[in-house]
């Protein structure tokens, strides 16, 4: 069993019994797609909502382009889009009291964009742990599809 680290603006796929992890999500979102029958899955660490206007850049950085790429890569491992379920986490507002800057609300926009594209692709959202003002480290256990979330102040849980 190996642990595969997904960096910022990065995406990876894996088969059971591997674990996919991304560390220290703030306003970014960790998007995981999982095929329960095939026990294969993927994880993306996105930073911005949409690829539109940023053509030519790293597709793993944007919610929409990263999800589409994950779906394609998982399909190549033998699990079609219709067999996938999604779990997402992150999208925090790290400096909660700061108000006068739209850029700080990027976490909310990232979460909304991720949910919208998943819905559009017909991928059921099994769990959604977004928002709040704290960072998260996540682990997708590809054997079971469980997503472990670790925080500094709010403990640890599986969703």
């Amino acid at each position, binding site marked *: 069993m190996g642990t595969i680290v997904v960096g*910022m603006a990065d995406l990876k796929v894996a088969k059971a019994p591997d674990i996919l992890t991304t560390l220290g999500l*703030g306003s970014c979102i960790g998007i995981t797609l999982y095929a329960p029958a095939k026990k294969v899955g993927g994880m993306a660490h996105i930073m911005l909502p949409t690829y539109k206007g940023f053509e030519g850049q790293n597709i793993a950085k944007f919610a929409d382009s990263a999800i589409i790429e994950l779906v394609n890569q998982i399909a190549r491992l033998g699990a079609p889009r219709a067999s996938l379920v999604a779990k997402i986490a992150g999208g925090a507002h*790290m400096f909660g009291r700061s108000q*006068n800057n739209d850029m700080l609300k990027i976490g909310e926009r990232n979460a909304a964009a991720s949910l919208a594209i998943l819905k559009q692709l017909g991928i059921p959202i099994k769990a959604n742990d977004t928002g709040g*003002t704290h960072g998260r480290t996540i682990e997708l256990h590809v054997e079971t599809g469980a997503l472990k979330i670790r925080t500094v102040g709010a403990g640890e849980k599986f969703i």
Partner: protein
Amino acid sequence: MTDTSDNNLTKHLDVFKEIGNIGAGNAASALAGLLNKRISMTVPDAAVVPFNTIVDMMQGPETLVAGVLVDVSGELHGFNLLVLEMKDALAMISQALGKPVSEVASPGFELSELQRDTLMEIVNIIVGSFLSAISSFTGLSVVPSVPNLSIDMLGAIISIATIQYGQVGDTVLFLKTQFNDLEGEISGHFFLIPDYNSYKILINSLGLEG
């Protein structure tokens, strides 16, 4: 959209280093006044580094840090983010309060109200003097907001910087400054995060081509 491309950041690295130098010098004098001791500082490192390298340079994405964010408005818009490792934050608090670190540090990451206020005040002074140096250097008026403190994982804290820079490339500009006193050293990491237009204004104010 290409104003702050990775290439342009690298091209103007020396300018940012100089801005960092002036800002940090001014901040060190302010800090010396506050702590009532001699503070020297190293010439800051300015670097343009890939997202995934920055967190490793600072001990990994899950390291507990104190991040203080100041919104900047006026003729420049953006943020100034100061990231302190907890040991440095606690050292600053202990010096400002005149108590040994052992009396300041709590087992977890919780700071008391007084400790938070003290840290905010220190940062207010550092960031304020940093910005006022940039303001006199460039002739642009810069207005800082009240600082916001967040104590959390490094990766989560600096996502503010990486996301802003992420709109134009895969690298981020950061300045590392070390403040030294007789008892040891305190490191601080500054992220200067101008928005696109402000980046151009900043470069142009120095008579350079964006």
